[in-house]
């Protein structure tokens, strides 16, 4: 039951809970990166909603703003913003993720002139100086929220929500371990869970996840695979991959395992320092952070080992620079370690090219000796 609810939420943009949230006079802001400090937003009754393309491959209006060299995920989201699908948002936090997103937010600001666009600057390095800077940035965001939405965000509330996040993260780890051992879920279910998490208030999401985890599905597969690479919310694509027999039992993508696996818990320290540490250090799982390649490689490797996968699929959207380059290097290194690796370059939300993807996945399974 809950699992189908989760799939339903993942398939709609403005879900029923968002509507309810709004009807209670609360705000919803769009953003696009896991560097967004969720608990702080929620502490101000502001729901952070991650932008996604929701299966939209038609980007004709967006293409006249962004260029065709821009990542299809960004173009797809921009299209939805331009055609009003995201009008339920009360503003945007332009979190510095990758360059494509920066251009996208600039175009959103240029074309739609939303009332609230706040730039959350996120450094690309982790050290004392950048942590201090980022703590300041988070504080600036808090002030911007307070100013725009007339709320007051207390440190106590932030801590309260941080603890809820801790609980969710713990639950997510449990969920992953379930999938590693004796898979009860398809990867496509798991992706729906991730998407739902990014589209719901945390106190709605938690019980939903809890009861979904109690459900059991009959699972058919030939090989167990870990999915890494650029952020992935395409449930349909994952379903197609799994139809070929490659069961996705773990993801290290930023909204997948990357969003909670290594995230630290609240330890009683200064709230802003804590948030800076929590989000910036966790961000090392993303290819946008420099000097942390070894960290990412090890993260993928150790999760692959723990999940006892047969191989790793490194996917990225066409025109994604960060993960396109990262994946080239990862492929070399993982293969060297004896982990079969497949690089998949794809157009976001496009199912037309599925034939070629399937051929590759099938050959990959055959290659893994399955």
């Amino acid at each position: 039951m809950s699992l189908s609810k989760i799939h339903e939420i993942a398939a709609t943009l403005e879900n029923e809970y968002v509507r309810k949230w709004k009807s209670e006079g609360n705000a919803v802001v769009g953003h696009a990166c896991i560097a967004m400090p969720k608990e702080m937003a929620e502490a101000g009754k502001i729901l952070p909603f991650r932008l996604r393309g929701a299966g939209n491959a038609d980007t004709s209006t967006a293409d006249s703003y962004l260029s065709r060299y821009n990542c299809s995920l960004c173009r797809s989201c921009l299209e939805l913003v331009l055609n009003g699908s995201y009008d339920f948002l009360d503003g945007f936090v332009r979190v510095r993720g990758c360059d494509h997103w920066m251009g996208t937010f600039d175009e959103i600001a240029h074309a739609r002139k939303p009332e609230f666009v706040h730039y959350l600057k996120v450094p690309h390095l982790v050290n004392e100086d950048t942590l201090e800077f980022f703590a300041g940035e988070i504080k600036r965001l808090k002030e911007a929220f307070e100013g725009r939405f007339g709320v007051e965000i207390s440190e106590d509330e932030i801590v309260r929500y941080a603890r809820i996040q801790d609980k969710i993260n713990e639950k997510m780890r449990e969920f992953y371990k379930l999938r590693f051992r004796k898979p009860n879920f398809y990867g496509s279910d798991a992706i729906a869970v991730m998407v739902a998490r990014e589209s719901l208030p945390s106190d709605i999401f938690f019980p939903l996840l809890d009861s979904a985890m109690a459900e059991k599905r009959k699972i058919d597969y030939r090989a167990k695979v870990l999915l890494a690479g650029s952020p992935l919310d395409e449930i349909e694509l994952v379903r197609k991959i799994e139809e070929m027999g490659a069961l996705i039992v773990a993801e290290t993508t930023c909204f997948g395992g990357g969003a909670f696996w290594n995230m630290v818990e609240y330890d009683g320290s200064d709230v802003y320092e804590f948030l800076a540490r929590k989000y910036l250090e966790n961000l090392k799982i993303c290819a946008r952070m420099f000097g942390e390649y070894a960290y990412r490689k090890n993260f993928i490797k150790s999760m692959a080992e723990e999940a006892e996968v047969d191989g790793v699929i490194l996917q990225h959207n066409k025109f994604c620079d960060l993960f396109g380059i990262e994946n080239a290097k990862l492929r070399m290194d993982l293969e060297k370690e004896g982990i079969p690796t497949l690089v998949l370059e794809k157009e976001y939300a496009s199912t037309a090219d599925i034939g070629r993807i399937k051929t590759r996945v099938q050959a990959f399974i055959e290659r893994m000796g399955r």
Partner: protein
Amino acid sequence: MFLGVDAGMRFTKAVMWDGKVLSEIVEETRGDMKPVLDKLKNAGDFKYCCATGSGAELIDFANVIEDDVVCLAIAARDMVDADFVLDIGGQSITAISVDKDGNVIDFMRNDKCASGSGRFLEVMSSALGIEIEDVDSAASKADRKLSITSQCAVFAESEVISYVNEGERRENIIAAVCDSIAKLAVAQANRFGISGRYTITGGVAKFRSITERIRSAIGEEYVEFPQPQLAAAIGAAIVAEEEFRDV
């Protein structure tokens, strides 16, 4: 009589002009252009000839050569009184804004990718086994919306083949091809900014299944160009006439 020749990437078009189109020639642009040139030379007695298009210099008997954006602008103003032209030819899409005298104000052309151009349509229809003349009627029989997303003409072809292999109806696929060309043209038009009366020219404008999709997306005042593939050639003929009177 004046001869206007538009030596395009795909087709060489010519019109014999005397205030209106008296006759026309459309021939494929080939590696060996001699037979085409012979045919043009024998088209009739003309006083002056203007050539345009990417192969203009191949028209060795032309008295004058003019840029195709100029010819298109003139044709659009003089023939249908349009402020904007969206030209979709064999290899590119060009948006042009035109002043009231038929001069170019500004233009924008995509030069990167062949997808979205006329050649793309040809490659696709041949992959589907649909004659180019039948594209419109086939597309009108579509009953399901598909999308082709590849940025690349050649890969788009393999998307098309994927659809074929999934047992999709050819009518639906060709409609998707028309759609994708229309989308690229609309994106180009929007990027350029069209506000006012516009027309669509070039060989691709012959296909209603494409022009109608463009029209419904652009929403400005549209005026149809009669014989749109000849537009640049007509413009060239008018240039020939004007030059002749000046000389």
